[in-house]
Structures are given as C-alpha cells and as structure tokens.
C-alpha cells in the first residue's frame, strides 16, 4: 500500500508514491536522485545521512519518507547551490577536513547546525556537537579546525 506524499526538497515541491517502510534517506537517493547524502549504518549511529527537515538536523535513516510529508527538506546539494554552507566548504577544503568524503555531507550539515544555533562555540563544544558524526579518515582535528575558523571568522 503506497502513500502519496508532497514535500519541498531543496526549495522544489515534489510529489511521489512511497511505501510506508521507505526511509527518508532512501527516498531522497532513489526517488529524487539526491545521492549526496549517504547511508552509512542504517541504524542512526554514524551520521552520514544527516539531513535538515524543517530546520532541524535529523538522521535520514531513522525517519520515514511518509513522516516528511508536508515538510521542507534540505540536503547538501541544496545548501551547496544556495551557498549557505559555502564558507564551511571552503574551510573544509583548505584544511583538508575530509578524505574519502563519505561522511562529509552529513558532517557539513551538523556543522552548519552548530553555527546557526550557537554564538561562539569553543573547540570542545565543536567536538561535542559533531560527535554524532563518524569520520574514519581524518581523526577529526582538521574538521574541528575548519569549523572553528568559520565560527571565528564569521562573527
């Protein structure tokens, strides 16, 4: 039994038929073609599927597509095109705060969330905020450096 859902993805209104069991991350990847967000563990631990739904970051593998009916969903592709995370992307690039890049879209969304909600986070607060996003390549230091630079530079 499929359900009809309508949502705004990266500013564009889309309607699709989905199965009740379909996860938001799979819906975006398979039905909308937004492969920038990744499914890393499919049980809500690694953070590679981090998305923004109505302004809140969520795990795309723990939310069902039907739950996003009527919501505004933003992904790394949308935030790249709107340039909302351009400073973060530049800082990540310059610090080499990514290697394989698989965790990066989720990491960027988590970092942007911190920037939006916190006045001037300390290094420790940055580390805590991204501790729900696994990175197996960098050891995290360059990511913390990059976020810290944006936090200090933009305020």
């Amino acid at each position, binding site marked *: 039994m499929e359900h009809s859902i309508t949502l705004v993805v990266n500013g564009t209104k889309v309607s699709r038929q989905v199965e009740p069991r379909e996860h938001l991350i799979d819906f975006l990847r398979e039905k909308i073609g937004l492969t920038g967000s990744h499914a890393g563990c499919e049980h809500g631990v690694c953070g590679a599927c981090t998305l923004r739904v109505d302004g809140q970051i969520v795990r795309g593998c723990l939310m069902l597509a039907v739950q996003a009916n009527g919501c505004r969903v933003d992904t790394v592709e949308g935030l*790249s095109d709107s340039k909302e995370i351009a400073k973060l992307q530049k800082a990540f*690039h310059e610090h080499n705060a990514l290697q394989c*890049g698989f965790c990066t879209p989720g990491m960027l969304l988590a970092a942007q969330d911190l920037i939006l909600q916190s006045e001037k986070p300390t290094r420790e607060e940055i580390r805590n905020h991204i501790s729900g996003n696994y990175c197996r390549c960098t050891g995290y230091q360059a990511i913390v450096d990059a976020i810290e630079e944006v936090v200090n530079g933009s305020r």
Partner: protein
Amino acid sequence: MGRAELPLHAPGTKLERGYIGRSVPRPNAKRLLQGRGAYVDDLRLPRLAHVVFYRSPHAHARIKKLQFEKSLKCEGVIGIFSGKDISQYCTPWVGVLAHLKGIKSPPQHAVAIDRACWQGEAVAAVVAETRAQAEDALGLIEVQWEELPVVMDMEASLSGKEVIHKELGDNICFARAHDTGGVDEAFARADVVVEETFEFGRHTGVCLETRSILADYNAAEHSLTVYHSTQAPHMMQDIFSRHLDIPEASVRVIARDVGGSFGIKVHVYPDEMATAALSVMLRRPVKFVADRLESFATDIHAREHKVKIRLAATRAGEILAFDLDDLTAIGPYSVYPRTSGIEGNQVVNLTGGPYKHQKYRAKLNVVFTNKNVTCQYRAVGHPIAVALTEGIVDKAAAKLGMDPAEFRRRNLIADEAYPYTFPSGVKFEKLSHHKCLNLLLEKMHYQELRQEQIQLREKNIFRGIGLAAMIEVTNPSPAFYGVGGARISAQDGATLRLEPTGMVTVMCSVTEQGQGTEGIFAQIAASAVGVSLDKVRVITGDTATTPYGGGTWASRGAGIGGEAVLQSGRALRSNMLDIAAAILQLDKNELDIADDSVVHRVTQEKKLPLEELGRVAYFRPDTLPMDFQAELTVTRHYTPRQYGFTFTNGIQASLVEVDVDTGFVKLLKHWCVEDSGTVINPMLVDEQLRGGVVQGIGAALYEECLYSPEGQLLNGNMADYLVPMAAEMPDIVCAHVETPTLQSQLGAKGVGEAGTAGAPGAVMNAINDALAPLNVRVTAMPFTPERILKALAKV
C-alpha cells in the same frame, strides 16, 4: 639505480621544487564537499538488479537442505541461487603464496556449498528488482542445518583436538620460526630479563562506505564492466577474468570515489565474486552493497594475537636480545590472494625493529578458527610489533630504573649506521631514529611533562606518558607478493598527455581512496612539466584508461605512483622542449618550461606559450621539420627493486590521564614525528598521520569484535562496536624529519600507516606509566574501563 634528483628544474630558481613540499588543497575534494561524489551506490544503470545474501546463522554447520520455493514466489524476485549454482560460473580459489612456505588453506567458493564455516558466510543469493524485494524474499528462505563443533579459541585450535578442515590434517594455516642463534646465551648473561604476554583484540576497518560492487556483464561482447569500491582495480580485473573465464582485456574495473578502504577493500570477497558471477548468469547489471551488519560479519577482521615476549638487557641499559612467540587466529580461510599469513609474518619481521640488539628469536603460529576471516588491515602487523617491542622496552627501562626516553636513546640504531641489516633479515636503507626522538622530546617538552606528572601524582591525578618508536614497511617491491606467485603488481605506471591548450592530463594506476593521491600526482606532474597546478587533471581508478599497476596498499602511492608520474612528467617536458626547439629554431638545452610557457633556461624570458606549442604540434605539424614527429603522450613505469621495502621510521608519544575510580582513559595530547622521506604535501601527510593515529587509538581503547563461545558476533553493529568519535580525540601534533630514499628521484616514502602502527603502543605505555605508582599493568587491548578496573582490582 637512480639517485635522489631534486631539484626538478634549474637549481636556485623558484621552480626548483615546484609544488613539491607545498600544502595545496586537493582539487578533487571540492566535488565531495558538494555531495557530487560518485560512490558505487550512487550509480544508476538501466535494468539494474539487486542481490542480497542469506548468511549462515551458525559458526560451523552443514547445510542439509536449502529451500527457495516460498521466496521464489515473492514479487520482484529474479532468481535465487545456491553455492552450487554459482560455482558453475565462478571457480573457487585458495589463499596461499609460495614464499610463505607451508601455508595452507582449503578451496573457497563464492557462496558456500556444503558447509558454512563462520557466522555470516553466504550460503544463498537472492536477486530482485529492488533491494527491499530481495530482502523480503530472503526472509522466506528455509534452511535445515546440522551444527558442527566450533573452534573459537586460538589455543584450542593450535592443540588440534577439533580440526575445522579435516583434509588439511590440523588447524595450522602457517608457521614460521626465525632465530639468529645465541638467544639463550644472551638471556643467560643478561643482568635484566623482562617478560610479558600481550593480547590484541580482533578489530576491523569500519569504512564509512560499506563494501560495494556493481557488475555489468555484456553477453554480446562476453565482456564485464565492474564498478567497484576497491583499492586494486588491476588485481581485481585479473581475478574476475580468471575465475569467471572472461578474457582479461574484456574485463574493465572502475573505482570511482571510494568511501574509505584502509586495506579492507584490497581483498577478494566471496559475495563480491558472486555478484559478478550473477551478472554473467543473468546477463544484466547486478549490484551488491553490504549493509552495516554484513560489514561487521564479513569485512576482513585483523589483529587477533596473543604474544609472549622476553627482553634481555645489561645493567648499563643495553638491549641484548628479544625472544617472542606469537599465536594468531585468522578464521576458517586464508584470504585470497594476499593470504592471512602476512600479518603474523610482519610481526616476526618487525618486532624490535628500531633497536640495535643482535640476537633475535621469533616463533609464529597462524591458526584457523570459526570466526570471520582476518587479513591485511592498515599497518598490517605493525601495531602488534610496535606495541610488543615498546611495551617490553618500557618494562625493561622500569626494571633498570632508567627513563624510557633515555633507555631508547641508548638502544636505537645510530643514524649513521646505514645501510643496516636487522637481525630478522630486513634491510634498512636510511633511518633517522635519533633525530626523530630528539625532535619529539623537544616538541612535547618532555622534561616539563615529567615534572608536571610528578606534581600531579601528589594530588592523586594519574597522568602517563608513553613513547613508541617505530619502523614501517612502505614502497614494497615484488618481494611482498609477486615472488610468491600472486598476480599483484609492485610496479605502477603513469601516462601524461599534453592537451592542445597546454593543459596536462595524468592517468595513473594508483587509486584515490581519499588520502590525496590525485592531489599529489597533480603537484608532481605540474612541477615536473613546469605548468601551474590548475592546468593539471588526474584520472585514476579505471583499468581501461590508466597504465597497469598495483593500486593502493602498503603505503605505496606517493613513493611508487608518484615516482612514475615524476619520470613521465620529465619525459613529457623533454618532448615538449624538442617541439619548442623545432618551432623556435633554438637549441633545446637553452630552454625550460615555467609558468605554462617555454622560457629561456637562464633568463626565464618567455619564448612560447604552451597553448601555442600545443596548437602547432596537434593542428599545424606541417610547419615542423619533415623528419620530426611530436610525441605528447608519455608513459613511464617505476618498480622499487634495490630494497625489498623502503622503510620509514618515526616515534609517537601519548599523554593520558587515567581515572582510577572509573577506569576511563582521557587522551590529553598525542605527538607523532615521522620520517617519510620527501614530503610532497605537508598538510596531506599530517592528515594521513592524524587519521592513522586515531585508528590506532581505536585499537588501543575501544575496538574489538567480540564473539560468544558459540561463534556469534556479539557487537557487530555501530552502536555496540565503538570507534573513536570527535569528543574523545586529542589534538595531534605532527612533525617531520626528511630523509629521502635514494632509490628514486622523488625520494618519497609512504606515510599512510605510520599513525596506526605506533599509536596503540604509545597509548598502552602511557596508561601503564599512569598506573605505575599503583603497581599494576594492563596488557590486553583494547584497554576498556572494565579491564583497567580489573587490573586495579576494583571490579
């Protein structure tokens, strides 16, 4: 043999080293930052089918009956196949190598036929139109099992009471003994003898992108294109060709973006072979993406070792001998084609490696068990060898009442002693242990930290400082695999092409896994040719377009692939200057290339823009002399041969604080001084070190694949298997000594594994240093709060 030959251009000019030694960001990272990567699961092909696997719930059991009737009726199911079905299309393999004398392993099939030998081994494959449909059908497969006795403990395996593969006679996959002679005499005359048994937890790579493969068979051509998350496209091309009986040149393996590999993705996996076979069987593209639970149960594990080690020293602090006995368990099969004997072999080769003792004895037994297979994971054997060595060295220093840094200083091989042959037989070209030790102690303010430590102990704060000196195998020659009969290339090739507009395209057989290979190849190519970095494009990871080569493993990308790029770049520059000389009617020796232009070698006066050179060469060669043919595509290959391996060296230090009430270890800071030869991009090198250190910290503190006595993996998911997270990790200070290898012009050695090699030993020593006032030691990794509290007799 060549010799180190930087500078690249006229000495003293700004071009002397070009981009070599500069921290430029990786061009290819921008794509990944915008979510525009192309990992296997991102690809969309028409008529794509999805495969999922029915996996054994038992560690050891005979398959009595497989019933697919109910599952075949499910919507979307294309086919369900047993091991026997798939074996008609994919031949089995045996993971042995000729130079590991006596190594044995039974034939392994893509999908198990009569018997499953570990929990997670695939016994049936379901192909459907969607993955969800395939998983629905999977739930309706019925299997009747006859459980068989399991061998879980390595000592029980060694005893051979229960033999897993009866036809092999015993459970010993591989055994090795090394003895310089004179070891017993050295121990007899020693003033101090220390002994310890260290245990290392089995752990795994946890790549964020799970293993992924999309195989696309074209029946009309009898050709196969495989999009594969792999480190070694050419090796896999050979293997698909051989086991699926498709001509080698009709198999194309493409590795686009790879979401982390760390050695996990350089092996032959049965389910991936089955996926390729299913594409042939079904004559359509088939994709397999492991889920996280499958990753834990079937990605290679590594490092399950138990080692007894002894050290003999004089009262004056001179190490006389090491003696060790290593027992390691590898699961039920030696992994193809690299074998599961290499890790233990490395422990024998490398233990004691930084020191100048002359007597050395090592014994190794590699045994089968009914757990998942183990094989080469980042820093193969090194973390064990380093932790063993440095753990027992610290114990000896303590017994002698000597400062651990001073004890090391007395025993590290002198920086002037090279070339040097270590008692295990490995040869070192040139190492810099003392320079690295001195730099480390200076960077970390060692003496001040020791003072602070003493003061804090009075306040019942238990801080510890741990050192770990290391050597690392990099730039492997054919001695690693080729001599043993494995079709694994030790050479790599690079093709450089000047485009008509003056841009340079680089095609290299070393792959990009995120470590920055493509970035440094662009730096080397730009430097060697004389163009700006923005004029270079790099292509890797495609057997159809790059020269043949080994890919990414054993820290070989920069040292081997980079050298091929350098030599190819120099050859291209020479050919470009031939054309410029013909156009300008000048002597070639008066010319060089700089800033995207042909220039006068001495005055640097601009003579000819490269786009003009390209225009003439490609579109108006009629204006060139009749007997002149421009050659603007050049290929060069490089194989290290003078030494079996180009060893690097380094030293790490860890500063920790142990909470003796909770058993928690707080990592305060970590230092790594490394000599990886010529540093091409300092930022990328530091990031390799840091990432490696953090994986090593994972091994020391968090990571272990835990099995029940029945062979059930107990923590095979990300929630229960801990990996390092941002909040717990320390800042890591990196520093470098540069001793270029003289075997190549570039002089680069590998750096991908140093961090992982040394960090577990450094952290272990720091914890034991913190606990020293309480007279307890911990020796079994990972050092969980529970283990520390047990050592303190608090639980």
